[in-house]
């Protein structure tokens, strides 16, 4: 993947804002350390993870192999972007 970490973060924010039907949420409203799931932050629930996993798989070919760490990986943009940068195949 020939992108910088900052570019990946921007891509992720755009993907989430555009594809998860988050009304009134623009990419710039999502901060790097904002919790994606649970109360507060972006407020996604666990089932929203379905769309995110499908998006990341189709866009980047990402396959999360370590299930025990998945909760930490998907915690916020700051945790997801480095993992994506390291593991994306597209």
């Amino acid at each position, binding site marked *: 993947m020939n992108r910088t970490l900052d570019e990946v973060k921007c891509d992720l924010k755009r993907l989430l804002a555009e594809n*998860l*039907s*988050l*009304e*009134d*949420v623009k990419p710039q409203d999502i901060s790097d350390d904002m919790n994606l*799931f*649970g*109360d507060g932050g972006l*407020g*996604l*629930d*666990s*089932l*929203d*993870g*379905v*769309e995110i*996993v*499908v998006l990341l*798989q189709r866009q980047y070919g990402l*396959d*999360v192999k370590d*299930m*025990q760490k*998945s*909760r930490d990986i*998907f915690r916020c943009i700051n945790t997801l972007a480095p993992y994506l940068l390291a593991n994306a195949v597209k």
Partner: protein
Amino acid sequence: MKSCATVAVGCNMSGETINDAPGTDSSVKEPYRAADWSEPGTGKGWQYRFFWRLIRTFGKRPAYHISYIVTFWYVLLFPSVRKRCRYYLDHRFPDRQGKARRFLDSYHLIREFGKTLVDIAAFGILGKSSMVNVCSDVQRIRELCGREKGVILLNAHCGCWQVSLAALENLRKPVSLLMVPDPRSQALADPCAAKVIDPRTGLTGVIAVTQALLRGEVVAIMGDRTFGDVQNVIAASFLGKKVFLPLSPYRLASATGVPIVVLLAPRTGLKTYELRLARVIEVPPGLGRSDKEYVTYAQQFIACLEEFVQEYAWQFFNFYDLWHDGASADNHRKPDAGSRTRSAAPASGERRLETARE
């Protein structure tokens, strides 16, 4: 138990369980106690060991006879067991009011449940020869599961899906079961050694299931229990009243583009189960996050259950108040229900189904 592996569905069965401590994920809501939706698990460890030895030594038939006595004992002495039966029976047989009739109905239901537990145990202990699977739809099921993309097998707690799924052991695809691990069936002999993903693990389980489907694997989901989740549920009308079902099968199908194959497994004889392809539900892709979009498809699943309980009234094994859970879920759900666009599940407007009669 070695025999468990031999009846595993598909291949690559590791028996692995994804089972983090429930409740550590903030997105998992569990307002009900687990016992609220569990089976009437009054059995003790030594009783399971007794039945295990009985089946191992003498086979199934004596175990059935002992189970008739044991279940009668429980129904007679434990009002809580009778109460758990009434949730379903009062909706299935609303006109039966006499005390004796209601007692016998409860006994009938628990006795059938006991027979199913014996069958599960015998299948794990004695192997495939203890039961015969009749599956007229097996070629169609294998064809659906053999495609490149994944498949969601949607089951319910009726009949004995554990035993009947073994009819699909030649799928040559990994199979994951999204279900709460049952220590009781493990204490006997669980015939399904597929990878178990605990739905209470929230995001971890969701990611595991989604990736499995994207890899073209088979995921079996119990479509009739919400496991205490009040956020990701969907309303449907079952036996004339509203219940809430898990939303996950339908959202998974839409997001990943896989079909939902409804499989039900009635017990049809002393040694026979039938694996029945009740329906293939095709959920259009890209329906998004609003649960309203999925009501039609949940109702299709419920239609399968209603047909099942019409034909096999004593093989529906949900011993908790599905209908009360519906009302309770309404009370617990926030207006935005964890989503900024998600609307509350419709309180009415679903296809009204005629109340079932015997």
